[in-house]
């Protein structure tokens, strides 16, 4: 714990020192103190909070849609070989196309800009969640399935009482990775096509030549990613009490 705090402290210290000593390159960007001050100022404005709300809403909707569709689809593919044979190749064909490559098509296809951004976020979350969950189903220990069958469990029980709980850790991992990816996508999408949001805030800082605004947006985005991924891990631990150390 103290090592981590020490190294983070040193990072900020060096950054601050570079600014004070006017070291070339890194010394030209605002110091942590400047950024902190600007951040505090920004929190006084309603525009800053509405950027949070807009990005947060996009992330939440796209991520939830990706998870709510990705988890059942992956579970179904994991349980049914025929279905998997049909659907999985399609998924593997579409997956290598990065979500951001979908942006132009998405804008043409969806009636509103909002929907097109959410769709791209959905794609990122969906593939991340679905592939992890599918891997989780495949990794269920066969001896646990056999033991359930030997005790007379029918497929319905095996799914609800064995496969699903065994897959929860993979669902949590997929969601956490998906959440990280979701933030990357929302920022990039907002830079490309947005008219508001934290990504747009960073882009606006760039357009106006305001380094401190860029950094305020970057820090905010980092906080957003950290909080939302942290929330997933906390919920994940709640959902898997058996993995807690006694």
């Amino acid at each position, binding site marked *: 714990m103290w090592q981590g705090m020490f190294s983070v402290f040193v990072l900020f210290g060096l950054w601050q020192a570079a600014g004070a000593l006017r070291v070339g390159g890194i010394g030209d960007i605002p110091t942590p103190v400047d950024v902190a001050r600007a951040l505090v100022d920004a929190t006084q404005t309603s525009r800053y909070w509405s950027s949070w709300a807009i990005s947060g809403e996009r992330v939440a909707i796209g991520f939830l849609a990706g998870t709510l569709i990705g988890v059942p689809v992956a579970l179904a593919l994991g349980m049914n070989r025929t279905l998997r044979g049909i659907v999985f190749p399609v998924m593997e064909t579409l997956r290598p196309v990065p979500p951001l490559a979908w942006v132009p098509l998405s804008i043409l296809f969806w009636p509103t800009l909002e929907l097109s951004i959410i769709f791209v976020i959905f794609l990122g979350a969906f593939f991340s969640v679905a592939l992890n969950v599918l891997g989780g189903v495949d990794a269920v220990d066969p001896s646990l399935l056999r033991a359930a*069958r030997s005790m007379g469990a029918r497929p319905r029980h095996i799914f609800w009482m064995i496969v699903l709980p065994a897959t929860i850790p993979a669902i949590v991992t997929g969601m956490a990775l998906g959440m990280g990816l979701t933030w990357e996508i929302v920022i990039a999408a907002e830079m490309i096509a947005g008219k508001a949001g934290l990504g747009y805030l960073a882009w606006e800082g760039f357009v106006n030549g305001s380094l401190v605004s860029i950094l305020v947006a970057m820090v905010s985005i980092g906080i957003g990613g950290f909080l939302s991924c942290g929330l997933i891990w906390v919920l994940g631990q709640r959902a898997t009490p058996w993995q807690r150390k006694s």
Partner: protein
Amino acid sequence: MADARSIGRIAVKGVGKLYQRPKQPPVQVLDNCSFEIEPAKLTVLMGASGCGKSTLAYMIAGYLSPDKGSMTIDDISIVGPGPDRIMVFQETALWPWMTVIENVIFGPRALGSMSDAEARSKANALLTKFGLIEFRDKYPGQLSGGMKRRAELAQALINSPKIMILDEPFRGLDVMTRELMQEYYVGLFEETRLTTLFITAELEEAIFLADRLLIMGGSPSRIVKAIEVDLPHPRTWEVLTSERYLEIKEEIMRLLYQDQEAELLAQ
């Protein structure tokens, strides 16, 4: 379990099993394998690892079917797994995400054979008997190896099976725990007298537990010898120093040794 004494006679006649794996020559694991398992007795099946002990156990449990010969329980052919037989595997079969009691009542829940309240009260009784009642709401990951094995026994017994099949259940436990579990298991068996097939590769464990000992040997394997182990009941560790125990041990050692010698000569 009161009528367990009168049911659960297993008859295996002339059973053969050929394993065919892709890109490998077929292996005749068992051939002309015949024996009977008498009700209310603890029959131990012993043989070197890889001789087909587990294959036999899987066939009796109904997971595999023989290529040749017949297998019956109380004169009815075995056609698949059934709740009359319960198998305890080598590896732990507790589900990590269920507490101990949830693990124990899984069987009745899956079968719908009793009400939830009934299953819980039965499970509580079994867990009390196995000294696990205080650990009822713990997860398997929080138990020691010996406790896990006891929880599995409770899990198996709650369904009141006719026949218990234990496939090297104490393998992988440390020596101390293993000996404790053997003694514990003997006590449990003498109380329930549930027809049992116990599979092991350990000679001392085999003699200590068995009412009747079946020795597997040959290639392909069959039962080469059946020995009635007439050591006194209840069994305690003192029997391991008795003269009769040593006699039986010597007899079996000679058998196993002959088998190995024949194998070496055949090469």
